[in-house]
Every structure is written in structure tokens, then in C-alpha cells.
């Protein structure tokens, strides 16, 4: 673990009095390696280390009998404060509230749409799930099955001979009309996975935003993402001015450094995390929960 690596750096210096800046640098080399192994973005790690160094150069750490513990505390606190905590969904406006999910292929959007539906019903909302992924085979059916498993209504996206016959903006327009008729007050829209570098598909999302002004645009990101997490998050945020992030597959054993990369790059709240395949495996995000895991 990082704490034992830092102990090792300092243990040979006991009895030599105050630590030097070089000693701090040696300790921070270990921290840097640990964060890179945790998939924190290279550039973000550099900035983080510089900030930690500034806080570590000073009497508290350098005169301390337990410098490694001090540095670990500085790093831990810095991580927790950067990662931030759950912020509630913006659902206090006039219904129907629209929550739109977006993200890369396979990140967990459709499953998360189901999870959000269950969560919102727990908050006494009248949820309507809307399948607006018109590309992936059986995407509409997937959301319908998830909806029916928890007794939530799902918009019946029209299909003919295996092809969807409405585009996402028509789907959402029809769904809103139905929601208003049935007093569904919260609409969760599932969209197709897409590369942030796919201009036509990013335009499709921008169009939905312009036409329907969703109250929440949530970026669904796989917690195992690597170095490209920064570029991906930045592009989705630049295109859509997202309102929050949902991290998925946090029940895996990856260190989850992408969370720090994403948060630091776009500075939008990480609101929830997916911790399993069941619709109930969904929790509000707290920085404390993954800070130590990123540290290693």
C-alpha cells in the first residue's frame, strides 16, 4: 500500500532532524506512481502532486516524527475535497422533469436509466422511461424489460421490420406528450452510446438539448476508464454542458482514478455510482468512498 511505501522512504531518515525538500520529492515520486497505476490522467497527476507538495513543504510535515502519515493525510484530504460529494438531482422545476443520459458505448446507460427510475420512484416521483437509442439491436427491448421488472412505464418506441421508425427527437416529443397526459412527472431518457469524436452523433445529442432543455444531462462513465477519460469528459461537457456524472461498475476492483480525472477536468458533480448489475445497486456518490481506493 502507498502508506507502507512512504514509510519506507522516510524510515532511514529518522534521527537526522528536519526533512529536506528532496525527501518530500522522493516520497511524492511514490505517490505519482501510485496515482498513475490507478489510471489518474498523467497531466492531472502532475497538477495534483504539485498541489500536495506545496502543502507538504512546511513545518507540520518536515518536523514531524511521522511524516508519511502527514503526507497521506494531506493526499487523502485533497482527494476527498477534489472528488466532491453527491448533489441532489435538479427535479424541483415544473413537470415533466427531463433527465437525459449520455456517454460512450457500453458504459452502463440503459441499466442506469432503470436504476434512476427505481431511485426516483423511491423519491415518490412518477417516472416514465424513454428508449431513445435507435441504433443498438434490442436496445429498446432492453429498457422495456428493465422497466417492466420494476413496474415502471416505458415509452413504446415504434419499430417496423426490426428498424426503429422515429428519430430521438421525435421519440422524446411523443414521450413528453404522453407524460403530460398521464401525469408522469419525471422522464428518464436513454440514448445510444457514442464516441465523443463522432460529430454527427454528438450533434444528435446537442439537438435534443436545444429542443427539450433537459433539467439534467448526466454523463455515464465507466469507472474503469483510462487516460482518455479526460478527453471524453471534456468533449461531452463542451458539447452539452452536462449537469452531473454517474460512475458505473464501481463494484469492480479497478482503482477508479478516472473519477478524479473527470471531476478535475469538467468540475461537474459526480452524483451517483453504480455498484452492480441489479437496479437496486445504485448509490449516491461520496468522495470519501473511493479516495482511499484511488490512493492504493
Amino acid at each position, binding site marked *: 500500500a502507498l502508506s507502507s511505501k512512504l514509510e519506507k522512504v522516510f524510515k532511514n531518515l529518522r534521527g537526522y532532524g528536519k526533512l529536506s525538500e528532496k525527501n518530500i520529492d522522493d516520497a511524492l515520486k511514490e505517490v505519482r*506512481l501510485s496515482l*498513475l*497505476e490507478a*489510471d489518474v*490522467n*498523467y*497531466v492531472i497527476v502532475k497538477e495534483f502532486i504539485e498541489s500536495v507538495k506545496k502543502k507538504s513543504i512546511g513545518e507540520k510535515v518536515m518536523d514531524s516524527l511521522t511524516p508519511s502519515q502527514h503526507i497521506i493525510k494531506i493526499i487523502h484530504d485533497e482527494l476527498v475535497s477534489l472528488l466532491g460529494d453527491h448533489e441532489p438531482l435538479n427535479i424541483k422545476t415544473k413537470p415533466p422533469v427531463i433527465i437525459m443520459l449520455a456517454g*460512450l*458505448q*457500453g*458504459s*452502463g446507460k440503459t441499466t442506469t436509466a432503470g436504476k434512476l427510475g427505481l431511485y426516483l420512484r423511491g423519491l415518490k416521483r412518477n417516472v416514465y422511461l424513454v428508449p431513445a437509442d435507435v*441504433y*443498438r*439491436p*434490442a*436496445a429498446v*427491448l*432492453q429498457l422495456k*424489460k*428493465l422497466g417492466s*421488472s420494476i413496474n415502471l412505464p416505458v415509452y413504446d418506441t415504434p419499430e417496423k421490420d*426490426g428498424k426503429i421508425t422515429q428519430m430521438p427527437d421525435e421519440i422524446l416529443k411523443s414521450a413528453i406528450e404522453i407524460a403530460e397526459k398521464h401525469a408522469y412527472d419525471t422522464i428518464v431518457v436513454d440514448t445510444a452510446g457514442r*464516441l*465523443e*469524436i463522432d460529430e454527427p452523433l454528438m450533434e444528435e445529442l446537442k439537438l435534443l438539448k436545444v429542443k427539450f432543455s433537459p433539467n439534467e444531462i448526466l454523463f455515464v462513465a*465507466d469507472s*474503469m*476508464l*483510462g*487516460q*482518455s477519460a479526460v*478527453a*471524453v469528459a471534456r468533449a461531452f461537457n463542451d458539447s452539452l454542458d452536462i449537469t452531473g456524472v454517474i460512475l458505473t*461498475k464501481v*463494484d*469492480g*476492483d*479497478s*482503482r477508479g*482514478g*478516472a473519477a478524479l480525472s473527470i471531476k478535475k477536468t469538467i468540475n461537474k458533480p459526480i452524483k451517483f455510482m453504480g455498484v452492480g*448489475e441489479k437496479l437496486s445497486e445504485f448509490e449516491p456518490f461520496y468522495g470519501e468512498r473511493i479516495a482511499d481506493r484511488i490512493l492504493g
Partner: protein
Amino acid sequence: IFTGGGLPPDYMEKLEEALVLSDISFQTASDIINSVKKDIPGAGSITSGEFKGFLKREIKKMISKEFPPLNIDDKKGIILIVGVNGVGKTTTVAKLGNFYKNKGKKVIVGACDTFRAAAQEQLAIWGERTGIEVVSGKENQDPASVAHDAVQKLKEKDFDLLIIDTAGRLHNKKHLMEELAKIKRVIMKANSTPPDETFIIIDASLGQNSITQAAQFRELVDITGVIITKMDGSARGGIAIDVIHKLGLPVRFIGTGEKPENISDFSPEIFVEGLL
């Protein structure tokens, strides 16, 4: 070595940054740089273009290991596809089926994800689109029994290649890894030999956990090859280097999009050019 050389002062740091940003592990990036430094002819100037050339050569050397050819020819073959959630297994099964169908093989697919919502239907649609028969099961049917049925169909009917899709599973979920081991045992029992190839699908956009995934899956169910998907994304796929160099596993194919034809053989040359 570089005194008076043509390399700018922060060249090594920028290089390390570029390698790590392409998802090469920090350790491997350092090894690559140090190994190139050793090979550089003595003192004297070297331009960054020349250094890049040495770098490409070094990386190509690391990923050009000799691997035996795929074990699926001149008999009825079975390929088992495994991996964590959402990496592209089902789509890759369709792509692989299409790939081998175009090479003249009579392909059948086993839809052994009986767990996830609409997984069977997703593969059924791919089967229709590519003209490939799919052996499917009922929702929540034991996936091993669907695998058994698929192997029987391969043996009894006029097919020469069976590709089996499985449910996504995280390698740290013991019961799910045991389920996979059971699927493999059932295939072994029905076929009298284990699957000819077991490919783990890894997603190019994911980080170092992919190496843990490959190592863990190999330990628990044995892996003979790797397919890296989503290489059409902004991630550079540097993870391939550790797969080959650290784990000693061959990267057999890469996925480059969402259509059936978006699969290609892994080429070390093309990979290195795309990396740098």
C-alpha cells in the same frame, strides 16, 4: 548520451507523457524509454525524428512475439468469448462470425448470456443481419445448458465453427467466474476437448484494470487470446503492449466500430504507427 544532441530539453518528459497518455503503464513506458536510450549510438546529436524511429522499433519488438496460429482450422472449432460488462463481447461475436463466414466457414453462434435483459434478442438480431444461425436459450436458463446444446448442434449438423457469447462479468465476482468455469467444463464434456480458443474481450478505452482482467480470467478459466475493441475511439490502445509483453497473450483481432465488418487482424506495424 544526449549532450549536444538535437533533442529539446524536456523531450524525455514529453515522451513519457505521450506514452502514458496512450494507456501504456508507467513501468512499461519507463522500460521502453530506458531500453531505447541504451541502444542509441554514443554521444552525438540525434534528432527527435530519429529517436522516434528507435522508439517505434523497440515497441514493435516488444509486441511482435511469435504466437502459434489460431487453433480452429481443419476440424470443428469452438471459440469461447468472455470479458467484463459492456466491453463489446456480443458485437464481437457477430463480427467474428461474419469474418469467418466470409472466409467460407459454416458458422453457428451460441447465445449463452441468459442473464442480461434482451441479451438473447440482441444476438438474434445480429444473427439475422449476418445470416448466421444462433442457438439460444430461455431467459435465466442455465447458460451451461445452452452451451451444451450449441456444441451438440455443431457436432451433429453441418457446421465447422461455433462461437459462444457469454454474459459480462467482473473478474472479482467469484460466483460469476465459477459459472464461467462451469460453462467451460460443460463444453469440454460435450466436445471431449476444451474450446479451441478462449478470447477475452478488452475495451481500449479502459485503463490498467484490463491487464488485471486478462490475468484473472486466465487464472480462472484459461485464456488463449485477446481482442481489443473500440480502437476507433480516442484511446490509443497502449494496453496492447502489456497484454503481449507482460502477460504473453496474443492480441488476435481489434474492433474498430459497431458494424459487422469492423474487425481486423492485429497488425503490430499499424498499431505502432497509430500509437505514436
